[in-house]
């Protein structure tokens, strides 16, 4: 099996999707001949022509408006937003339009073909505007699906599934793993399920839930914890909405403890939703308060980024606190 980094896996997924179906189009700022500022769309214009892979003018609300129309028409647009931090000008098109298109028309029209790709997350010295993790905004929006892969294998399988999913999907790519994360990725077409979490490690004492780049951080914390004799069960949510409540609940019923981690600020982050749901469904089984290890309630900083981030040490400490409760 070839080894790919995450960008290659994404590029490969796009290539497969475009080769298979003429209706798949890739576009966004600098996506065309240049292949995107991260090169996720490299060579696609060469291969599939300018009408199927192209630069757009610099206007995110237009990119998504255009993509909504294309999807309604029956095409399968894969629109790139250059950084997740710049998705907000398109917020109205996503939240009021994409998310409600099928519902409001009674299923006369839908934009299920739409996939929105955007690099998200910190750890690259990007400051306020090249580091954000905006998944919680979209998670509060019925009608959208939100998917985040943790490694190249997941990225390819989940992206192919997203493109072919009958609903619009926002696909957030952990950009600090773009080149840093490599792994074996099958050359051929495959899909991984949307809406299903994955238990990446089984354990008995505490359940750790995360997604995307945070999975790697969790793994480092788990190494520390296991050395202290704590047995951790680790779950990669993979899909933020609709999230796989049952898998998380099942695990917490077993371990009695839950820690959730994300880079986004604490208040109103998606960990809150998981905590609120789990405390309800596992009330009698919880042995300690559900812990959230997240970014601070501030804009994303630069010089003190390391201090800001929910790193393995903070998770490790929170694991210990939970066990010691």
């Amino acid at each position, binding site marked *: 099996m070839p080894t790919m980094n995450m960008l290659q896996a994404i590029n490969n997924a796009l290539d497969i999707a475009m080769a298979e179906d003429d209706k798949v189009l890739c576009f966004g700022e600098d996506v065309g001949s240049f292949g995107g500022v991260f090169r996720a769309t490299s060579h696609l214009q060469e291969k599939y022509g300018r009408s199927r892979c192209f630069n757009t003018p610099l206007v995110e609300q237009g990119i998504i408006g255009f993509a909504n129309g294309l*999807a309604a028409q029956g095409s399968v647009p894969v629109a790139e937003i250059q950084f997740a931090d710049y998705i907000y000008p398109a917020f*109205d098109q996503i939240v009021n339009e994409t998310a409600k298109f099928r519902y409001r028309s009674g299923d006369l029209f839908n934009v299920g073909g739409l996939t929105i790709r955007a690099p998200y997350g910190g750890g690259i010295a990007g400051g306020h505007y090249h580091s954000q993790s905006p998944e919680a905004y979209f998670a509060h929006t019925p009608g959208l699906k939100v998917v985040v892969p943790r490694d190249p294998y997941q990225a390819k399988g989940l992206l192919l599934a997203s493109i072919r999913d009958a609903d619009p999907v926002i696909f957030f790519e952990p950009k600090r793993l773009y080149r840093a994360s490599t792994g074996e990725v099958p050359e051929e077409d495959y899909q991984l399920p949307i809406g299903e979490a994955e238990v990446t490690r089984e354990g008995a004492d505490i359940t750790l839930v995360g997604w995307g780049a945070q999975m790697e951080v969790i793994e480092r914390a788990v190494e520390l914890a296991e050395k202290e004799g704590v047995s951790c069960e680790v779950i990669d949510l993979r899909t933020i909405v609709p999230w796989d409540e049952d898998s998380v609940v099942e695990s917490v019923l077993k371990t009695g403890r839950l820690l959730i981690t994300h880079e986004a600020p604490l208040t109103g982050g998606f960990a809150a939703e998981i905590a609120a749901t789990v405390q309800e469904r596992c009330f009698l089984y919880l042995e300690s308060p559900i812990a959230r290890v997240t970014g601070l309630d501030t804009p994303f900083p630069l010089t003190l980024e390391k201090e800001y981030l929910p790193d393995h040490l903070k998770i490790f400490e929170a694991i210990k606190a939970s066990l010691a409760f």
Partner: protein
Amino acid sequence: MTTTTDIHSPDFLAGDEFSIPTFRLLQQDGTLFDGAVAPELGRDAARRIYHAMVATRVLDERMMAAQRQGRLSFYMQCTGEEAAVIGATAALDDADMIMAQYREQGALMYRGFSFDEFMNQLFGNELDYGKGRQMPIHYGSRKLHYLTISSPLATQIPQATGFAYGQKLAGEGQCTTVFFGEGAASEGDFHAALNMAAVHQVPVIFFCRNNGYAISTPSIEQFAADGVAPRAFGYRMHVIRVDGNDILAVYAATQAARRLAVEHNQPVLIEAMTYRLAAHSSSDDPSGYRSKKEEEAWREKDPLLRMRRWLNDRGWWSDEEERECQERLRREVLETMKRAQKRPPPPLDSLVTDVYADVTPALQRQLDTLKTHIRRYPEAYPKGAMSLDPDVSPRDDADDKGGA
């Protein structure tokens, strides 16, 4: 870029270098302007247009009255703008896509949306294609290539660019026409849409109904320029301004625009100068922001009257037919309204379907919980209870007293 000449003194252009003329064919008395040539429009086609205009007018009058009587929660009229909307629609292929703002029921009428279909939407009953989820006037028809209305303004404009781009790739010779008001044209989405259409050479017609107002805001507080038309220069896009109350001019202009779009992949901007004769909506009272005199002046430019005179002159219509037609339409509206009002609401399940292609487990749980709750308090949720199992009847246990 065609930048050619140099200047050596700092002379500003102010936009007064050119002016945008208005394309007109038909005078208010029903005769053509000197030198004007009517577009080819046979008797049947002309009557189809006029009939849609009258039907729209009648529907609007009746439904606004129904709203006033409390039978309907909300309504919006097309009154005064029928020629703009229907003239444009008639110049299209019936399979061309239409993305409207909300005041374009005339387009649906022209394409054959039945009164029943209108009424089912207006009353949000079980037959509403939109399953009773949106406010009245949010029509949509897949069959008639009319995208379901969405209230956020201008969002449909870049969508039209995208849809038309897809049509171009599909290569079936269709285009998209998107309607919007001069107010909505201030939104950022307008700029995005026109620019992208010009860059990507998309077969889309941007049809601006400049009716002088955005709710209470007069166009003079909406933009400083001479209307919306000059914006086309900023995108290098073909543009024409047309008298929006002149059915022949609107028809001819849109026909020509469609040729540019479909045959040359040239997007076009049409600005139709018209006037909203009625209130913005049933929630609005225009006496607070404009004069009766102004309204009267525009009432004299009524597009229906103008077309009727032209038809009469050609012997294609008569006062007799007008009377009959109006009466028949009024009767039909009333009958269909009664039918629609009586129909049950959409089923309770419609609350959670279509959020996604398939109902998610979480939504199914929410629906189940809701059903249990409604079974407990059926009289508190008459619409929801109605659609639950027919054998459920209001219980009368201790818990129920809150349901009154």
